[in-house]
């Protein structure tokens, strides 16, 4: 091994001379010169393409940098300002517009109680105008697409987003189980008017409907509160449900996002 290293040393010293071939190109044959030119062309093209790709990729950042090199931005806005008086009038008009808009926007916030449902974190907030009245945990739609094993039917379980209004308030609600509730459990689907479909006590003490068959209601499955597990309804814990039921009236707004 030692010998080998020693042996290669002179070669190593000779290596640069070999690589330095183009230096003595004049004295060497034409194919050598042609080779070197070709090598330069290949390397130039390759590195050029790399450089071009980098410039292409970082063009937005380079543009940002280029903006810094531009001369300072010149104030170009046209202002109707023949005199201070004109400008003051303009300012007053803008102030008036500004205040009108601010008041209009303030009036859009509901004065009464309303419910905000955060379906990505499964949280609720009961608000009155701009004040937080109550915060709680809920369960919202699972975002599951259920496909029936025996036929082509499918259902998508998501809580709809948007602004809704309370359509009705129900005490001691019962649940009329739809087809998917049986299919999901691997059970045969009973007839449409079968008493098997009616379940009592599973929706808690109260339910508030907000359209298209969706409800805010209680649950027996408290363990899953805070998780996206429902079929689209909004499940609440008993205490939270009481607050929501007492404060929200028919017509109150429910915001789901």
């Amino acid at each position, binding site marked *: 091994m030692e010998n080998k290293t020693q042996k290669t040393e002179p070669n*190593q010293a000779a290596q640069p001379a070999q690589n330095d071939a*183009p230096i003595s190109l004049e004295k060497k044959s034409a194919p050598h010169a042609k080779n070197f030119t070709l090598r330069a062309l290949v390397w130039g093209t390759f590195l050029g393409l790399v450089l071009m790709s980098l410039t292409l990729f970082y063009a937005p950042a380079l543009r940002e940098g280029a903006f810094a090199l531009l001369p300072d931005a010149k104030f170009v806005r046209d202002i109707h300002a023949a005199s201070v008086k004109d400008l003051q009038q303009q300012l007053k008009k803008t102030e008036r517009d500004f205040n009108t808009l601010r008041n209009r926007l303030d009036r859009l916030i509901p004065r009464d109680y309303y419910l905000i449902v955060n379906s990505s974190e499964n949280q609720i907030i009961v608000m009155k105008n701009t004040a937080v009245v109550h915060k709680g945990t809920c369960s919202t739609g699972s975002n599951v697409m259920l496909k029936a094993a025996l036929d082509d039917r499918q259902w998508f379980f998501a809580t709809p987003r*948007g602004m809704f209004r309370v359509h009705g308030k129900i005490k001691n609600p019962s649940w009329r189980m739809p087809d998917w509730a049986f299919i999901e459990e691997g059970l045969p689907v009973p007839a449409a008017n079968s008493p098997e479909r009616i379940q009592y006590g599973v929706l808690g003490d109260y339910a508030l409907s907000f359209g298209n068959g969706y409800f805010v209601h209680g649950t027996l499955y408290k363990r899953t509160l805070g998780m996206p597990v429902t079929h689209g309804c909004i499940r609440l814990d008993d205490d939270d449900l009481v607050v929501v039921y007492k404060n929200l009236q028919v017509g109150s707004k429910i915001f789901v996002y």
Partner: protein
Amino acid sequence: MAFSLAKFWRRLVNPFKAFFQGLRQHPLVATIFFLTLLVPALVVLTFLVILPVANNPYEAETSSTSAAAEEHANDTTAAAVVADSAMSEELEGLTQRLLELDIRRAYLQARWELSKGDSISLSINLRDSLVSLEMKGTPIRQCRILRFEVSRALERLQAKGRLHEWLTTPFTLQKSDLATLPKAPVRVVTAPRDTLEAQARAKEEIPLEKNDVHFTLEFDRNLTLAFEQAQDLSFRGRLKKWGYELQRGYASVKEAVHALLAGELPQHRMLITLELTQEDAKAIYRALPRKAGLALLF
């Protein structure tokens, strides 16, 4: 060890050394080499950097940002153009107040326009470091911005006193698919065939979503918002973010090439980078509809 390292280094460097020595001796070959090396990059630099910056529409001396902007310009344009230098102190003070108020009014105007729609909209107030989700004018979630960066092009627009023109009309979301998390985490499940299968499935844990949150929202009028989570990333998260950055770069390259092929100069997108907590960023991304509106105060 040191010896072998030196040997390795020599082996690595010597061919390059020899190549460059050769270039020094052959000016013609050197010229060809540097031309092939630099020309493609210079062409790209010219068409994708220099010309788009020089011809940036927002750098133009006259207003042309939008119909609303033109309308507003007509409202305020008159005979006298007040230049910085010519302004008396009083005039300058009044002008500054007017500009400030105009920008704030533009923000409220955009929010008012958005409140007329039915969908969830985004309102970003960089002055107070607040991002709000709004529905029918009611703020349904307010998030604190922990850090933000704004494009220089936007700062220049402000310095020109023309920012309010750009902000008066709400922005509309064009693209929102660049993200490290899915827009809607949909799971497809085939129903069990019998109760035994259903019971077995009931024992399975509900899968919890764990995603780092980084996403880009592209709006009209060349505005891009990049949302980043403030929390540290795991190794896997870093890899995912790297992939996301690559995708973002690729998207901008694609856009630039498309513009060039159409015989146009690519336009510089005004980027605002916002850092929020992971929860806030996720809630915003999931809540925004495909064509969401945005009101911006800068």
